[in-house]
């Protein structure tokens, strides 16, 4: 099993969700985060005093999938989330040691 984590632009979330549903992904966890990569920040003023905006709002989504489906999911996210402009985000894949469905106690691939 693999955990796929993606940090994407917030307005792309619906598109990514639809893209994942289309390939049969049935569950997703989403949180609102802030981040920056190589895009850098900029300076603003508030009542005449300067402040730095480095962090940009992003959405982080996590989904656990079968080993075999991981690449397909990464491709689906990339296709849906890309705009071609700076700040599109990143996806990474990590192994999952153990997976449990809380309601039934099912484990492993059956818990996906």
């Amino acid at each position, binding site marked *: 099993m693999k955990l796929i984590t993606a940090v994407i632009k917030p307005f792309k979330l619906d598109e990514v969700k639809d893209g994942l549903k289309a390939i049969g992904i049935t569950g997703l966890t989403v949180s609102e985060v802030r981040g920056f990569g190589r895009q850098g920040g900029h300076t*603003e*003023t*508030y*009542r*005449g*005093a*300067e*402040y730095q905006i480095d962090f940009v709002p992003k959405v982080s989504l996590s989904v656990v999938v079968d080993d075999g489906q991981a690449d397909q999911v990464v491709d689906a996210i990339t296709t849906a989330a890309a705009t071609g402009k700076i700040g599109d985000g990143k996806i990474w894949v990590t192994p999952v040691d153990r997976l449990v469905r809380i309601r039934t106690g099912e484990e492993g691939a059956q818990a996906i």
Partner: protein
Amino acid sequence: MRKRALRITSGLGGTLALLALTPNVGFAQELTPEEVQAVLDNLWVFIAGILVFFMQAGFALVEAGLTRAKNVVNIFAKNMADAVIGILAFFATGYAFAFGGGGDWIGTENFLLTGYDDYSAIDGGLSPATTFFFQAVFAATAVTIASGAMAERTKFSAYLLFSAVMCAFIYPVVVHWTWGGGLIANMSIGDAVYSDFAGSAIVHMTGGVAALMGAIFLGPRLGKYGPDGKPRAIPGHNIPFAILGVFILWLGWFGFNPGSELAADQYVMSVGVNTMLAAAAGALLATVTIWLKAGKPDLAMIGNGALAGLVAITAPCGTVDPLPAVIIGGVGGVLVVFSVLFFDSVRVDDPVGAISVHGVVGIWGTLSIGLFAKYDDAFLGREDAGLFYGGGFDQLAMQLVMVVIIAVWVAATTAILFGIIKATIGLRVSAEEETQGLDVLEHGLQGYATETANTGA
């Protein structure tokens, strides 16, 4: 049918007989025009007082919007408390010190609104009840100005104490010297006597100077100044609150200024017009000024600009023509931007710009009478008192004398007060509390309890 008619008739007849026999009820009394006018006067001033009271909501929203979410309960608590304590303190001693007879220096009677045969009696003028009501909400306005400059780091108990002394004593003395017919009211320079129609100096500058002293004694918020000494932005958490607050204050000001006519006559409307024009001009000129200075129209600053226009016109609203009202408000809008930047640069941290809006622009508004006074606003006692109308420098000088006397009084007394508070119960919260936010540690409440708000329980 006959029985029913009989019952109705006898019922009516009995009621009529009862009414005719009862004094002061029914058709026996006729009101004279003077009495009608007096009732209208009292009614208008009372309603204006209600509008001024609602400014408390405006102040609370502006201050909450321009400060951080972790302190929102504390800001609202301070605003609630200074209104509550302010009014009660003014009732206990403030009204007496302000208006209770006495000589040049301080009033000596009518404590707790006693000493009247019937304090609500309308005797051709404003009843003591009307006067107290109107003046009490003014006192509450003067005291709440400081809470913005002292936001996010003041101990609640210390602030309560300040509110009490401010409304029980410091502000009432200022009122006594002016509206109460005392020290300043008896001064003159040539033909010039003081004029401050609704209180640019008496209310707003007083509040602004107290705010300045508070901010100085407190010191800047943690993190406001970087290691290089440059001021850092601490953005407010709710700009919609702030602007809503500005609109509510603007509305309330239609009670503040026109109500200060203390009568229901045509000047209520012209004062209202001046008030409206100055607010708009202040907002517009502040927009232009900050846009040029910072490159973008900062809405928080625009809000301050509208308030600056209102503060500026508060003194001259009874004596100026509409175009000068625009100019006076506009200058206020420009001044407030530069003043905010100035105080930031000298390490006086004023989270909402209260010192600038009320203190600095309050001074400008008061002095502007010396330039633009045209009509007799019932204070001046003469026409064309302003420099630009051939009145010479006398009025300007008299306004300046008033400003200096009031400023020195308020600065000295609040400095002593804050000094005593600082040395006894302490003025500022601990660094840990300031960092975590005052809401939970001072009040045991979260302002926005998102976890509990979203759980099913």
